[in-house]
């Protein structure tokens, strides 16, 4: 998997033309170009370059930036905490809003509460994240002056970017929680739980939600990639010092080792998150534990 991603990324970057020409001054004599090429190993055959890149990558060496010659791994490590902070905050907001909304919607199926919540969810799915970000900046940042509109540091700085980013998954999540709850609420064990006189909140929280959680967690894991992708846009708008902004700057500078490194690292994070989702199944559903034992 990781190998496939690296191969794809490597192929992509090497379709882009000669990186050496981007590094030397435009009026550099051919000898200088050739010398730079040899010094950086760009004169080797492509399979060899790939093998070297992989061999270094597994040791944590992702090459150096073409611009400032700093190690790519270091640059990513520097920026990653901010991105993790942003995506996790967005995920928490999405779950805190979407799960109750989905449950309320399912419990009140067919009423105006249901309709209103689902209209909100459908609208949320259609909202371009960069537009919402601009609207939030204009209203809460510029008009009301409640929250800072760019930069990173305090909790207040986190609010607007995290809220913008959360809409990427919020609507979809709320709809999924609703449909998943509706399915579970029709099951025999829910009827049994009610019949034995359990209070409704307990039925919902323990008996229904836990069973409804499996598809929700699966989708959350898959959607995490979209959150990481959305971070690219959000970070650019809010001047958030994460890997998303790093990669956009790198694209404009044609600094491809950084692009290569970020795509690789982000994909690995996605793979790890989905492994964690598999672990979460076992926690949520003891039947899976039994089946595996």
């Amino acid at each position, binding site marked *: *998997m990781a190998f*496939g*991603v690296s191969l*794809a*990324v490597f192929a*992509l*970057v090497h*379709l*882009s033309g000669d990186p050496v020409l981007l590094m030397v001054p435009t009026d550099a004599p051919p000898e200088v170009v050739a010398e730079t090429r040899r010094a950086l190993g760009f004169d080797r055959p492509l399979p060899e370059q790939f093998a070297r890149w992989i061999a270094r990558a597994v040791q944590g060496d992702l090459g150096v930036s073409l611009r400032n010659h700093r190690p790519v791994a270091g640059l990513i490590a520097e920026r990653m905490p901010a991105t993790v902070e942003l995506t996790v905050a967005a995920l928490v907001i999405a779950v805190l809003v979407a799960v109750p909304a989905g449950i309320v919607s399912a419990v009140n199926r067919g009423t105006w509460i249901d309709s209103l919540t689902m*209209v909100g969810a*459908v*609208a949320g*799915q*259609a*909202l*371009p994240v*960069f*537009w919402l970000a*601009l*609207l939030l*900046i*204009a209203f809460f940042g*510029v008009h009301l002056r409640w929250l800072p509109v760019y930069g990173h540091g305090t909790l207040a700085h986190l609010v607007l970017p995290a809220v913008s980013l959360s809409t990427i998954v919020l609507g*979809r999540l709320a*709809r*999924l929680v609703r*449909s998943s709850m509706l399915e579970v609420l029709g099951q025999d064990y829910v009827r049994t739980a009610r019949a034995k006189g359990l209070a409704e909140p307990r039925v919902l929280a323990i008996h229904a939600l836990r069973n409804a959680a499996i*598809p929700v967690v699966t*989708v959350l894991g*898959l959607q995490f*990639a*979209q959150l*990481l*992708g*959305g971070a*690219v*846009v959000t970070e*650019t*708008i809010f001047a958030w010092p994460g890997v998303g902004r790093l*990669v*956009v700057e790198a*694209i*404009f500078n*044609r600094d*491809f080792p950084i*692009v290569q490194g*970020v*795509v690789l690292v*982000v*994909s690995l994070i*996605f*793979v790890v998150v989905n492994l964690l989702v598999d672990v979460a199944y076992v926690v949520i559903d003891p039947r899976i534990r039994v089946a595996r034992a």
Partner: protein
Amino acid sequence: MKHAGLPFWLAVGALLVVVLGAAFAERLAPFGPGEQDITQRLQPPALRGHVLGTDELGRDILSRLLYGGRVSLLVGLIAVGLSCPVGMLVGVTAGYAGRRVDDVLMRVTEVQLAIPTILLAIAVIGVLGPGLSNVILTLTVTGWTLYARLIRGETLAVKERDYVVAARAAGAGDLRIMGRHVIPNVLSPVIVVAVFAVANMIILEATLSFLGLGVEPQVVTWGRMLNAGRLYLATAWWLMTFPGLAIFVTVLSVNLIGDHLRDWLDPRLRRSLL
């Protein structure tokens, strides 16, 4: 079929307005999309003259919206029109051929699934360079896996059905079975997925334009209008409000129509697409 409610017809109406507006932009637009009038710069919306106001170069926002809609709709439709057949071909081949071919093709789609769409798109466009055809190519590259995975699953299911077995017994070749028996049976989920994909492509194109990685600078798009408008969000709200609204309404309409189509064509998909 579920009775089509008010939201569905509102969506059809809104989409019709957007499509007709884009198609007849020359006739409908009160001004040219690039027509500058420095004396009229940053005018707020007014009942006379510039209905939706003007931008920092005195260009009419309404006219630019109408012309910008062309790029959004065309790019969305063409990207889906290209990625859908490619994905279908890969999916049918993987599902039908099985074993080695299936393994290789599905590994490729898994790899692509692990890379966030926007990140992949900006990496591809960064390599290719901006421009209309590169944007379309990029969206196609990011979009085909969706159909491939869907079609493969459906093909695996259909392959074992009696009518396919019967067709084979009657001596039909692989190509004929795929073309005449498998593909028609998996078409309805594909149509539903493709409709939602148009909406996603419109957002993705706007995102690329917004980041400054979209089509040629002289071409007006909603995403680029938004990007220019962000500099004036404190002083001229109309610059970033209307293009965003246009994207939002278009995407919402397409999604609502897609929801309805799904319920109509293939209720089984409800769960997997939500």
